[in-house]
C-alpha cells in the first residue's frame, strides 16, 4: 500500500508550500487518491478550486501525514472525487458554482451555493451572465404510500441562521431529510482575492461568528507558515488562551441549548449564566466579548489587559464550583436522558468516512483533535485529554462537550500560570514572490482549515474550510428513523455553522 509520501513522489512538488507538501499530479494519480479515500485509508480534509486547477488536502489517518494534491484543469473539468467518496460531493458542487470547473462523472451535478441570484455565474472563474430565470432546485424524490413533506426555512422560528430543510416523513418518523444551504453565502473567497493580510484576517474572523478566534488563528498560522514567520512565545500562549475561552463559552452555551430543545429550560438558564460570565471575562481581559480581531498574522493585536488574568481565573473558579452540579442534574434527569440517549445516532464508520471533526467525530469514536494529532504550539507543551466516546447519540455529543469544558478550564489555568513575558507581535515581512501556506486549527466545533497563496504580500487565493462541511451531511443521515420532534435536538447537538459553511 503506497503511503502519502509515495504519492507525493509521483507528482511535481511545489516549491514554497508550508508546512506540508503540495504536489501537482496527473489525472491518474488524482483518481488513485480518490480511491484511497474511498477505501478509508486516507481522510479528505478539503477540496477547493482555482480558476484552472483543483486542490485536495488529504491525511493519512495512521501517521497523521498531510499533503495537498493538485490537478490542473485546462479543459475546465476534473475527475470527480465524489463519485468514489461522497464527502467530496458538496465541495465539488461548490467548485463548479464558483469557478465553473465541472467534476466529471459526479452523481450529483446540482448547484449548491449558487441559487441563481448573484446575477453572475462562476463569479471566481470565467464570469458569465446568470440564467434569465432561476430554475427550481431539484430536491431528491422520496416516494411511497403515506409519505408527506415538511419544508422548513430559510427563516426559522428561533434566533438562528437561515437554511432550508426538506423533511419527508411517514407519520411522525423522518424518512429523509434534505438540506439546502447557501443562503448566507457572502462570497468571502472572492473578497479575499487581492486583499492585504490585514483585511484577510478581518474577513477570516467574520466567517463564522462563534469561531472568530479559530478562524483568525487558522488564517494567521497559514500566513505565517507561508512566510516562514515564527511568532513570539507570549503570543503563542495568548492565542491558545483565546481559543480555549472561545471553546469554553460555546460548549457551555451548547450544553444548555441542547437541553432547552428537550424542554429542560433550567439547564439552559444556568449554562447561559456561565457562558455570559466567560464572555464578560473575555471582554474585560481583551476588550471584546467574542475576542474578535485580536489574533493577527505575526502575533496578537492586544495583550491581556490589567487584571484580566485575575478576572479569568475568578470566572474559572466559579465555573468549577457550579458546573459539576449541572452535570449531575443532566445525568440524573430521566426525562432529559429519555430524549438524548439513543437519539440521532451517528455510527462510527460514517463519522470516519466523513472525517467528522469536533464533538461530532469524537462522540462517534473518531479521536482526531488538531491540538493533539497535529500538536501545534503551545499545545505540544500543555497537558490535556481528548475525550472520545463511541455511542454517537445526542447524549454522547453532550458528554464530549462536558469533558471538553473541564479540559479547557485546565488548559486556561496552565496557560495563565505559564504565560511567558515578552513581545506579543512581530513585524510581518512582505514576503517576496509566491508563497503558500496551510494551517489546521481546532475550533470548538472541529478543525478549521485555511490554505492561502501570497504574491508580493497580497492574497492571491485563500480558501477556508469549516468543519461543518463534513458534519452537515451526517446530520441528514442521523435524523432518519427519528421523529420530527427530535430534529431540533439532533440539530443542536451538531450545531453546524451556516455562515462558515456558506462562506
Amino acid at each position, binding site marked *: 500500500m503506497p503511503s502519502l509520501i509515495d504519492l507525493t513522489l509521483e507528482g511535481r512538488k511545489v516549491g514554497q508550500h508550508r508546512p506540508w507538501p503540495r504536489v501537482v499530479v496527473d489525472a491518474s494519480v488524482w483518481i488513485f487518491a480518490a480511491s484511497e479515500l474511498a477505501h478509508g485509508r486516507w481522510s479528505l480534509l478539503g477540496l477547493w478550486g482555482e480558476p484552472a486547477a483543483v486542490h485536495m488536502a488529504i491525511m493519512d489517518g495512521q501517521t497523521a501525514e498531510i499533503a495537498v494534491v493538485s490537478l490542473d484543469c485546462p479543459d475546465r473539468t476534473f475527475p470527480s472525487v465524489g463519485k468514489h467518496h461522497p464527502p467530496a460531493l458538496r465541495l465539488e458542487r461548490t467548485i463548479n458554482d464558483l469557478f465553473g470547473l465541472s467534476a466529471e462523472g459526479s452523481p450529483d451535478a446540482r448547484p449548491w451555493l449558487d441559487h441563481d441570484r448573484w446575477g453572475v455565474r462562476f463569479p471566481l472563474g470565467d464570469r458569465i451572465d446568470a440564467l434569465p430565470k432561476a430554475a427550481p432546485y431539484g430536491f431528491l424524490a422520496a416516494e411511497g404510500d403515506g409519505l408527506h413533506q415538511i419544508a422548513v426555512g430559510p*427563516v426559522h422560528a428561533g434566533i438562528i441562521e437561515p437554511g432550508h430543510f426538506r423533511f419527508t416523513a411517514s407519520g411522525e418518523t423522518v424518512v429523509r431529510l434534505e438540506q439546502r444551504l447557501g443562503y*448566507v453565502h457572502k462570497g468571502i473567497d472572492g473578497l479575499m482575492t487581492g486583499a492585504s493580510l490585514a483585511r484577510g484576517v478581518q474577513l477570516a474572523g467574520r466567517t463564522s461568528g*462563534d469561531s472568530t478566534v479559530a478562524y483568525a488563528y487558522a488564517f494567521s498560522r497559514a500566513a505565517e507558515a507561508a512566510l516562514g514567520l515564527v511568532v513570539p512565545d507570549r503570543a503563542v500562549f495568548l492565542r491558545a488562551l483565546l481559543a480555549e475561552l472561545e471553546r469554553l463559552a460555546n460548549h457551555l452555551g451548547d450544553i444548555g441549548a441542547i437541553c432547552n430543545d428537550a424542554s429542560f429550560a433550567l439547564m439552559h438558564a444556568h449554562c447561559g449564566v456561565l457562558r455570559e460570565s466567560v464572555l464578560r471575562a473575555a471582554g474585560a481581559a481583551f476588550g471584546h466579548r467574542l475576542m474578535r480581531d485580536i489574533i493577527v498574522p505575526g502575533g496578537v493585536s492586544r495583550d491581556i489587559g490589567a487584571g484580566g488574568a485575575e478576572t479569568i481565573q475568578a470566572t474559572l473558579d466559579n465555573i468549577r464550583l457550579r458546573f459539576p*452540579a449541572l452535570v449531575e442534574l443532566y445525568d440524573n434527569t430521566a426525562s432529559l436522558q429519555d430524549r438524548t440517549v439513543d437519539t440521532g445516532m451517528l455510527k462510527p464508520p460514517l463519522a470516519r468516512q466523513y472525517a467528522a471533526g469536533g464533538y461530532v467525530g469524537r462522540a462517534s469514536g473518531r479521536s482526531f483533535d488538531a491540538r493533539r494529532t497535529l500538536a501545534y504550539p503551545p499545545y505540544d507543551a500543555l497537558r490535556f485529554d481528548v475525550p472520545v466516546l463511541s455511542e454517537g447519540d445526542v447524549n454522547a455529543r453532550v458528554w464530549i462537550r462536558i469533558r471538553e469544558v473541564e479540559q479547557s478550564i485546565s488548559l486556561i489555568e496552565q496557560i495563565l500560570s505559564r504565560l511567558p513575558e515578552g513581545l506579543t507581535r512581530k513585524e510581518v515581512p512582505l514576503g517576496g514572490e509566491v508563497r503558500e501556506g496551510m494551517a489546521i486549527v481546532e475550533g470548538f466545533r472541529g478543525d478549521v482549515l485555511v490554505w492561502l497563496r501570497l504574491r508580493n504580500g497580497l492574497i492571491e487565493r485563500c480558501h477556508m474550510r469549516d468543519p461543518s462541511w463534513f458534519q452537515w451531511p451526517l446530520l441528514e443521515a442521523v435524523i432518519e428513523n427519528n421523529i420530527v420532534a427530535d430534529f431540533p435536538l439532533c440539530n443542536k447537538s451538531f450545531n453546524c455553522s451556516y455562515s462558515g459553511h456558506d462562506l
Partner: protein
Amino acid sequence: MRKLLFESVFRQPLTERAPLPDDAAVAELATALGQAARRRLGRSLSIREVDAGSCNGCELEIHALNNAYYDVERFGLRFVASPRHADVLMVTGPVTKNMREALERTYHATPNPKWVVAVGDCARNGGCFAGSYAVVGGVSEVIPVDLHIPGCPPAPTAMLQGLLALLERTDADAVTS
C-alpha cells in the same frame, strides 16, 4: 427515581440565587424599555429576529439578551417565532442576494405598525462584505430601516439602548403628530 429527580432539582447550589452581578444599569435600561413599549403599544414588545446573511456573531449577542443577566422577558420584550406576531424586525447581516427575497417576504408578513432595527455594522452598509457579488449591502437597500445599532457585534446593552431610543422616538412622534 422520583426522589432522585426531586433532589437534583432542589439540591444546592441550584436553589441558590444565580451569581448575578447587581447590574443596575441594565435593569434600569430594561425597565425604561418595558415602560416605553407599554406606553407605545399598550402591551409588550414582540421582536422577530431575521438573519439576512450575518456571520452569526450578532445572533450570539441577541441571544444573550435572553440570558439570566439581561433576562429581557421580564420587561415585556419577547422574541417571537413568527413575523405575524412581531412589532419589531431585528435584522442582521449584509443582506445576501440569496436571502433578499426571504427578508422581503418576512417584512411583508409583519403587520403594521412595525419597526425595523438593523443590528450590526454589516446591516448598515454591508460592513466588510460590501462590494461582494453575493451581497446586496445594508438592510435599508431592501426594506425601510427605522434604527441602526452599530457594533460588530453590538453588546447586549447597546441593543437595549437602541430599542429604547427607538420607542422613545416613536413615542415622541406619536405625541407631536
